[in-house]
């Protein structure tokens, strides 16, 4: 079954076309790398898929629910990490996760165990009592991912989850994302190709608002070590 179905999705900001008639599908349980140069339309696509922003035209369905017609049903199935982790600096990590769990409608009796589950999964259990405002960048990112995992949504949309992290934190976050495969469908946006190579099986490359590649990792690299880089540079050239 397709977790995400996108048809002719277009978004215009006044006279600028951000994404232009995107059409693609993502199957359940996949980890998909969503690639493209800066400003290609990755974040715009993600904002539309998560229901933050409406499209100018076209259709998008998440787990079979149209994001424009049945936004609440679709949003129930999505965990989203925006480009900047959406934290309230004056709340503790636990207080923050509690708040998000309530917004997501996690049953009252399960909130505590759910917080422990996602905090355990992202390695932030020792930080639960700290204010989110004083956390290091790596921990802020993890709290952002923990927040997305609350309520165990079928689809996780992560917008540049490794941005601004040091190499060790990067590796840890990637391993975390990889461990989510199977149970969750993950869409991961980034412009760091080595990360994608390490964990994704499907690759979508977007350039100037258009899909320029949509294939399995093996088909895109052609088995070569530098295959993904070559393809990326070739496809996103002028």
């Amino acid at each position: 079954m397709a977790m995400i179905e996108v048809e002719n999705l277009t978004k215009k900001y006044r006279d600028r076309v951000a994404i232009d008639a995107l059409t693609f599908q993502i199957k359940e349980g996949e980890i998909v790398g969503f690639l493209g140069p800066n400003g290609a339309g990755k974040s715009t696509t993600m904002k539309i898929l998560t229901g933050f922003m409406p499209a100018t035209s076209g259709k998008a369905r998440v787990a079979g629910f149209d994001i424009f017609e049945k936004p609440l049903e679709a949003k129930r199935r999505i965990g989203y990490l925006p480009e900047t982790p959406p934290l309230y600096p004056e709340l503790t990590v636990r207080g923050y996760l509690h708040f998000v769990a309530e917004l997501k409608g996690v049953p009252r009796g399960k909130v505590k165990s759910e917080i422990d589950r996602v905090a355990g999964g992202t390695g932030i259990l020792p930080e639960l009592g700290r204010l989110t405002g004083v956390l290091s960048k790596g921990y802020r990112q993890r709290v952002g991912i923990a927040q997305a995992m609350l309520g165990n949504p079928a689809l996780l949309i992560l917008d540049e989850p490794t941005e601004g992290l040091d190499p060790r934190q990067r590796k840890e976050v990637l391993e975390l994302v990889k461990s989510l495969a199977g149970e969750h469908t993950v869409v991961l946006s980034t412009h760091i190709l080595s990360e994608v190579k390490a964990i994704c099986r499907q690759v979508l490359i977007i350039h100037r608002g258009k899909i320029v590649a949509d294939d399995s990792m093996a088909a895109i690299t052609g088995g070569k070590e530098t295959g993904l880089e070559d393809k990326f540079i070739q496809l996103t050239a002028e």
Partner: protein
Amino acid sequence: MRTIFAIFKKELTSHLTTLWAWVVFTVMALLSSAFFVLLLGGFKQAQDIAREVPGGWSALPAEAQQFRNLTDGVMISLWGTILVVTLFVAPFLSMRLFAEERRNKTFELLMTTPIRPIEIVLGKYLGAVGLIVCTLGVTIVFPIILSIIGSSESGSALEWRTVLLGYFGLLLWGATNMAIGMFISSLTESQMVAAFVSFAVALLWMLVSSVAPRAEEPLRSVLNYLAFDSQLQNLIKGVLDLKPIVFFTSVIAFFVLLTHRSIEAQRWT
């Protein structure tokens, strides 16, 4: 309901753990105590004069008659003053409501969780009302002090019904200010701009009653109707009046709905 309550709770925690709210509470406490002391001084002066003048109260002019008891002489004037103080401090509480969500990028979180925008707005507004109730809550100590240390021939020092109706008018006015401030906060990312514009709007509203007498009919009646001080006049004096309750509730509902439209509309740009 649960989500509205969750946002309400978060709003109160967020504000009460930052410095701003406490600064506002302190300013309210300082200003209102200063006015309280001044009014009390005036009251004492009037009482002393009444005791010395032959003929007592009946010999004094009509405008001095309000000083015959604490309710009219002190409390009603105090509520009238706090009304204006509220207008000055409310923008500093309402400015953060949406502007801060924008700045923290948490607005995206709110809009992508499975809740309706109206739940966000209602939760926020309830939080805002909670804050203004805390701010005005400080001032309830004044009638309590008066009822403990004051005395009168009729037994109780204060007419509590009058005092509480006036207090209700004050809360209604505070809640109205927060609704307007919330709408303005939803339009901008900058807290300072939000506070400044809310303040300007409140100031203009304050001017309406002074412009009204100079206007021609039918404009004059319209302005008189819109002026908040004339709307609140009766409630502050302790007369139960439905007109201001309907008026301010409508203003609140209007701005809550406007906020809802505003956050919906921003997703389209």
